[in-house]
C-alpha cells in the first residue's frame, strides 16, 4: 500500500480462539502494584 504500513495485524481477534486459560501472570504482580497494566503481560501458551 502507498499510504499505509501495517505495524501489527489482527492479533487480538486471533487470540480469541485459544484464549482464556487463566494461567498468565496477574498484572499487578509484575512491577506496577498501583496501576493496571495488562498489555505487556506474557501469554503462557506462547512460552
Amino acid at each position, binding site marked *: 500500500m*502507498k499510504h499505509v504500513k*501495517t505495524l501489527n495485524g489482527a492479533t487480538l481477534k486471533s487470540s480469541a480462539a485459544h484464549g482464556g486459560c487463566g494461567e498468565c501472570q*496477574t498484572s499487578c504482580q509484575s512491577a506496577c502494584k498501583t496501576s*493496571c497494566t495488562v*498489555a505487556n503481560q506474557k501469554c503462557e501458551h506462547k512460552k
Partner: protein
Amino acid sequence: MVHTFENLGCYIAVDVNSGAVHVLDKMMFDLLRRIENLPRMPERCPDEVKSELGEYAPEELDECWAELLELQENGLLFERDDYVNPAMALVKNAPVKALCLNVSHDCNLRCKYCFASTGDFGLGRKTMSVETAKRAIDFVIQRSGIRRNIEVDFFGGEPLMAMDTVKETVKYARSIEEEKGKRFRFTITTNGVLLNEENIAYINETMDNCVLSLDGRACVNDAHRPTANGKGSYDLIVPKFQKLVEKRGDKDFYLRGTFTRDNLDFAEDVLHIASLGFERGVSVEPAVGKPDDPFAITEDEVETVKAEYDTLARALVDHPEINFFHFNVDLEQGPCVIKRMRGCGAGSEYVCITPDGDIYPCHQFVGNEAFKLGNLYDESFDLELSAKFAGMNIYTRKECGSCWAKFYCSGGCSAANYNVNGDITQPSHVGCEMERKRLECAIAIKAIRAGLAE
C-alpha cells in the same frame, strides 16, 4: 472503532477491536481522522469529506479510500467486536491464583506518599507468622481449582523485615507443589535497606521477579523516601540494588519508582535509574491517592505529566536497551483478548493477605473493612463480594466501552477508581488520561523502531 493519533511525528491508527495498528502518511491520517467514528466505511469517499479536505486532490483521496477499504475487508480496520463474547470474561467462582502476601506490616522507611501508612496500613506494626503464611499457601492451593500457575508476591511493609517467614513460606510451598499439581512463582517487592550478601543470593535464587523501590535521582528519592530516622535512603540502597542486579543473571527485575507532584520532570528519573545499570527494568509510576493527597497526580497536573511522557518517549526511542515498563506493550504476543477484558483480577483471581490472616481484594484495599473478603483462621471468604470484582470487565465498567485503549489497559485499577470516585467501577479520569498517553507513546516508539516511521 478506530483511534488515530500523532505522536513522535508518527501518524498512527489503532483498530481497537482487531488489535491492528497502522502507520499512515499525513493525507491518510487526515482522511481517517475525519471518519474514525463511523461504524463501517461506505464504498465511496463521501463528498463532504472530500470538501473538508480541500488541500488534497479528490483522486488522491479516492486512492487512500481504496486502501482503507482493503484494510476493512481484511478485518484490519473498523472491525466489529462481535467475535468477543463478554460472557467469556466472567469467571464464575473465580479461582484465586495470586497472592500478595503482606508478610510484614512494618517498614524501615517512612515514604511520604505511602498508601500503606508507612507500612502498617493503619492496622499496627506486625509480622506475619509462619503459621499464617502456611495457611495462605493452603488457601491458594485449595481455591485455585484447575489453575496450575500460582503467584506469591512477598510484600508489605517491608518483606525483608520478615525473612524467616519468607523462607519458610517458600520452603512449604515447594514441599507440596508437585503433589498438589501446582507451580509456584515467587516475587518480592523490597526497599532494599536490609539487603545483604545472604539475602541477595536467596532472592536471586528463589524469586522469579523482584521489584526494587527507588524513585530516581538522589534528591527526588531522598525527599520522599527517608529512613525512620529522617535520613535519605539513596546512598544506602543503590549499591545494594546494583549488587543484586549484577548477580541476577537474566532473571527479571524492575527498579520501581514513584513520581509525585514534586517531580513532574520524572523522565529525568527514568533515565537516571537506567544509568545506574538498571536499564533492563525501569518502572516509574504516578503516586496514587485520594484527590486531596498532597502527592497524587490530579487534573491540575495531568497535562504536564502527558507532556513529560512525550519527553520520555523522545528520549527512549533511540535506546531500545532501556525497558521502561509502561512503554512496554506487546502488540503481537501479548495476552489474549479474554485476559484483556478482565484486567488485573483483584478481588477474584488476586487477593492480598495481612499478618492477621485477613483477606482483601488487593494490597491497596487493606484496612478498608468494607472490602474485607474474609480471614484464613475462620475460613471465611465473601463469595458475593468476590463475584462483584469478578463480574467487572471492560464491557461492564462505566466508560470503558467507548474507550480506544480498553484492550490495552483492561479497565484500570479498581483501587484507584475507588480512591478517586468512591466507586470501583468508575474509572479515574486522570488515570485514564495518563494510560492513554503512555500507550500512544509506546505504539509510536514501536512504529519507529520497526522502521515504519522516522
